[in-house]
């Protein structure tokens, strides 16, 4: 489509034949299940791609236009020279009781709060959200990297829960889905989890700036983020339907596990103002800058706040109906 300045107003309608390539399977399932997908005016080509490295790879290869990730991947995309913008933000309604990650504690490791982390072996995966979480936790606990023993390992698959179970590390961040299986396996040996005490609920949609500079794609994304926002709310309101449709049918979890995961993640909120979201993001950025020697970054520069308004407009429009 025609070129669009990043500061120019978003066009309303994409040209006919514009296809938006989206890597966001959860939203896809939500839209399909709620039926909202039929109301979408744009053509979407869904890709079953999630997670930082994969979406970034796909961006670089120009295989998708927009991806769905936590708050860390856009930072690394930026730091490694792929110009991206965050176009949507989501948080959890009650983040303290519904954290995305908990800290798994190995059987026999004497850790009951994050203050006990001093001198402990902690699984640390730089470059992944889990790695950032560990740094955030240390910051909250008032510890430096030297006060603990960081064991570098990538959180591929269930490596962290195995490392915990075999007592190779004392503490490791575990995603909710893994918390359940970890406890199921090792609770009887004394395994526990503790809350991380830091917010880890930030979720974003992001897109390469090259996509956003395409007027048609930008218009399509404007439509998409609106639908996305409604889908997130639908998920919060229909946890059982979503659990069934996504976690059971799409991801192959058992119904019990699916329910557990959905309950654990709690309800989503889509902020219509991103100020707090960006402020919290900046804290994480600063932590990474310090902890991983990254280049300082004013994180607000990688937000495209035109979409903040688009989302707000959509949700308010919805509310007013």
């Amino acid at each position, binding site marked *: 489509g025609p070129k669009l300045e990043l500061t120019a107003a978003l066009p309303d309608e994409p040209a006919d034949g514009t296809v938006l390539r989206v890597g966001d399977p959860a939203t896809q399932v939500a839209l399909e299940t709620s039926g909202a997908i039929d109301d979408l005016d744009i053509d979407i080509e869904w*890709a079953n791609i999630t997670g930082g490295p*994969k979406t970034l790879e796909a961006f670089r290869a120009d295989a998708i236009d927009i991806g769905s990730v936590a708050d860390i991947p856009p930072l690394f995309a930026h730091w490694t020279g792929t110009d991206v913008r965050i176009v949507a933000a989501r948080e959890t309604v009650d983040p303290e009781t519904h954290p995305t990650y908990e800290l798994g504690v190995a059987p026999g490791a004497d850790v009951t709060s994050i203050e006990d982390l001093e001198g402990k072996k902690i699984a640390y995966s730089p470059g992944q959200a889990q790695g950032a979480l560990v740094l955030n936790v240390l910051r909250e606990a008032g510890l430096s990297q030297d006060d603990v023993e960081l064991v570098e390992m990538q959180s591929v698959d269930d490596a962290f829960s195995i490392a915990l179970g075999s007592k190779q590390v004392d503490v490791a961040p575990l995603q909710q889905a893994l918390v359940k299986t970890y406890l199921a396996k*090792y609770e009887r040996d004394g395994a526990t989890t503790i809350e991380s005490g830091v917010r880890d609920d930030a979720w974003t949609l992001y897109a390469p700036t090259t996509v956003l500079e395409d007027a048609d794609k930008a218009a399509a994304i404007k439509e998409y983020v609106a639908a996305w926002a409604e889908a997130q709310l639908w998920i919060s309101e229909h946890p059982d339907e979503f659990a069934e449709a996504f976690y059971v049918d799409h*991801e192959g979890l058992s119904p019990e596990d699916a329910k557990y995961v959905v309950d654990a993640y709690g309800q989503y909120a889509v902020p219509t103002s991103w100020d707090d979201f960006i402020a919290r993001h900046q804290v994480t950025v600063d932590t990474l800058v310090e902890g991983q020697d990254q280049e300082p970054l004013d994180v607000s520069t990688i937000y495209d706040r035109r979409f903040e308004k688009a989302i707000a407009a959509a949700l308010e429009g919805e509310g007013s109906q």
Partner: protein
Amino acid sequence: MAVTTLTAPARRAISSGTEDVRPTRRRLGPGKPIRFGGLIGIAALLAAWVVGSATGLLDPRTLTEPWTVVATAETLIENGRLQESLVTSGIRAALGLGLGVAVGLVLALVSGLSRVGETLIDGPIQVKRSIPTLALIPLLILWLGIGEPMKVITIALAVFVPIYIHTHNGLRTIEGRYAELAETLGVSRTEFIRHVVLPGAMPGFLLGLRFAVTSSLLALVVVEVINATSGIGHMITLASSYGQTDIIVVGLVVYALLGVSADAVVRLIERKALSWRRTLAS
């Protein structure tokens, strides 16, 4: 002058009732194949798993018990996921295997029969095979997108290397006497390839095929991470990101079954196609 000890094994007698006493000589080769011998080892492995799990020697948290695996497999079959994954993966692997074998074979012939071909082909292939497939994926995504073609070609890329190397090696180690013979018989290059090179390189090719088949299966795990919604590799990856050990083990058992049977098939072909050989094995 002592006469060696003699044995009278009950060999099949031609004229009934006649004895069959042969000099015993220390057998140095491996002797006769044991029928279904290959299965015995696998059965032992299975038995160890069952016994280990039953006696608690194998912690079910480490390795899911066989019965749990069977139950999980049943569930997966009931809801159709396993069959669907098998079909999807099967088609992908077969296409990739076919493509990879064809390409590997042609490259091996070109590189094996002409030094110029070798000069151009061999180096890049050695480079290719030193590089983890995983690392090539970004490039392949760029060039081929994230759809099926990318997956099939990635599998083919994993497959063609062992085919190429083994066929090339097999071809180069054909005895020079046979090439001499062909030269004196004045055969054309095509006839030479068909009647000397291909049969002579066949043992190498078939060994390569054994590796190619496994490679095609293993490559599924890599390619089905990207934009796949079904397939054995996808099933395993998904299950491991949720810590579903039992599903992972089902996937691995399927892999083992596929791998072992594919290997057995290739070895059967090997035995049939190479029946002209007189080796230690025969």
